């Protein structure tokens, strides 16, 4: 395909993007979004109480999540602990490694609170098989949250606490490359759920969390099949993660994170084993005011034995996301990503999101690599909806 042809395709994609964004904003100004039905049912809230466009959370949704899905002062109306989420993704521009233009995915969620003051809860997320990958349990944890202090303890399979959650509250289709880059054979990125303990304190001033993990999620993440590897990977020592995020005046938050671990890699062919000690450090900050949101994160990493021959490798990655909420239930976002692991890649991710009906979300995204003329820009769209449908009056 010629450069002129590529440019014409790119212009057409951007025009389509702009037109859909405008249509979405106009439609969603009249039809607000849906929620995870479990929580909407529980407290009789409207869906917009927690979400801008499901599953993206607003300030109350995040506060509710951090409180362990529990509002001690609010009487419960109905508990139905199971919900389903379906999403269909269309990829206009396939990468050479891809052969599916339409990808369907179903996710089963179950959560419930228990105990005298409902301060204990569990949460599970099962991803049904998709794109040739087997179904698997993506999250499965139990926790206790002290409603007065915000001190919590969690055990099970969970996501590491990051300033922008890579999966559960994904506000677009494409994951931040900074969260998913890997070094050599190691899958030590920040996006993969960990199996272990997570504890800390989350309140209006600080979000301090520590994790000690013995293992991680090994299945297909959201339908993407896991690439085969000659090496069997295991945690040589428990991996330790710590992060702190401080709430500052005028809508600012700032903090840091640190991850340290060591993994063993055994060749399935020869039985040879090597170890790689690794660490990741990060800085994170955000600002929110009125319709605007700005979120950024920068990571620096080092693997002491990245290739199994004793050679160390440095890495880095980061992103900055700017979001504009045109209505309470739609937003336009622009994310800039950069990763060096060790080869540098950069991209822009432009997206528009709105709620076309009371229980669904539509995303249109244009992902454009920069500084690499051979890399393909990808335009994709996704329709997502949640079940069970409830009283539309209640779920405005």
């Amino acid at each position, binding site marked *: 395909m010629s450069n002129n042809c590529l440019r014409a395709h790119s212009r057409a994609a951007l025009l389509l993007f702009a037109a859909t964004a405008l249509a979405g904003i106009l439609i969603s100004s009249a039809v607000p979004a849906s929620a995870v039905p479990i929580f909407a049912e529980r407290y009789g809230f*409207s869906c917009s109480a927690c979400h801008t466009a499901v599953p993206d959370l607003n300030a109350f949704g995040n*506060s509710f999540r951090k409180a362990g899905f529990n509002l001690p*002062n609010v009487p419960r109306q109905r508990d139905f602990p199971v919900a389903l989420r379906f999403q269909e993704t269309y990829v206009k521009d396939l990468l050479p490694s891809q052969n599916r233009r339409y990808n369907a995915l179903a996710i089963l969620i179950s959560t419930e609170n228990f105990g005298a003051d409902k301060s204990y809860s569990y949460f599970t997320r099962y991803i049904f098989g998709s794109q040739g990958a087997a179904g698997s349990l993506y999250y499965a944890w139990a926790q206790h949250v002290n409603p007065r202090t915000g001190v919590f303890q969690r055990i099970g399979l969970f996501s590491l606490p990051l300033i922008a959650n890579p999966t559960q509250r994904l506000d677009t289709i494409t994951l931040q490359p900074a969260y998913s880059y890997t070094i050599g054979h190691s899958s030590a990125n920040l996006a993969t759920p960990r199996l272990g303990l997570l504890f800390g304190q989350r309140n209006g001033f600080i979000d301090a969390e520590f994790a000690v993990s013995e293992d991680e999620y090994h299945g297909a993440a959201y339908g993407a099949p896991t690439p085969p590897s000659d090496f069997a990977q295991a945690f040589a020592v428990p991996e330790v993660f710590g992060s702190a995020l401080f709430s500052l005046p005028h809508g600012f938050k700032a903090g840091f994170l640190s991850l340290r671990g060591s993994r063993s890699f055994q060749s399935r062919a020869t039985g040879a084993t090597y170890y790689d000690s690794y660490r990741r450090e990060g800085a994170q900050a955000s600002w929110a005011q009125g319709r605007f949101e700005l979120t950024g994160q920068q990571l620096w990493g080092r693997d002491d034995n990245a290739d199994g021959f004793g050679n160390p490798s440095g890495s880095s990655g980061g992103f900055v996301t700017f979001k504009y909420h045109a209505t309470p239930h739609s937003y336009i976002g622009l994310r800039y990503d950069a990763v060096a692991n060790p080869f540098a890649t950069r991209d822009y991710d432009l997206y528009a999101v709105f709620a076309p009906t009371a229980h669904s979300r539509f995303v249109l995204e244009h992902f454009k690599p920069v500084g690499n003329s051979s890399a393909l820009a990808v335009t994709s769209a996704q329709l997502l909806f949640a079940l069970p449908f409830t009283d539309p009056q209640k779920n*405005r």
Partner: protein
Amino acid sequence: MLGSIAAAGCTPGAATAPNTHQPAAGGAIVIGMSLIKYGQSSSPFGTVQAYNPAFLTVPAGSTIQFHNEDGFKHTATMISGSFPSANTFNTTALTPSGTDLATAAWSSGDLDPNGFSQTFSSLHPGTYLYGCYHHYPAMRGVIIVQ
């Protein structure tokens, strides 16, 4: 694209600019708003909750102001008749309107954390029900003006 964004800013129901009122001088009665801090109480009109006080009786001529004490947005928006079983507010509740409790469909608009509403006068005796656009039925209150 920028044009469409600007146009959307004028669309009814669009996200509103922050309500930047200050605490009223001169003894306004302040009603706190918190889903976290304030529990249920009873009133002759049904259960009220998450405002403090959620059931308030004032003499005519009093001035009332709402204060968001949570870390997320709330509104105080008038409800006509009795409390409905489900949330029936529409997005006009997100825009501040009215300065008298007798004004039809008065609303504080979307109040940011620690935000104060405009002041409401209570010149006309009557019973005024209200609730939060985001969190009804878990947030609702009653003001009786005598």
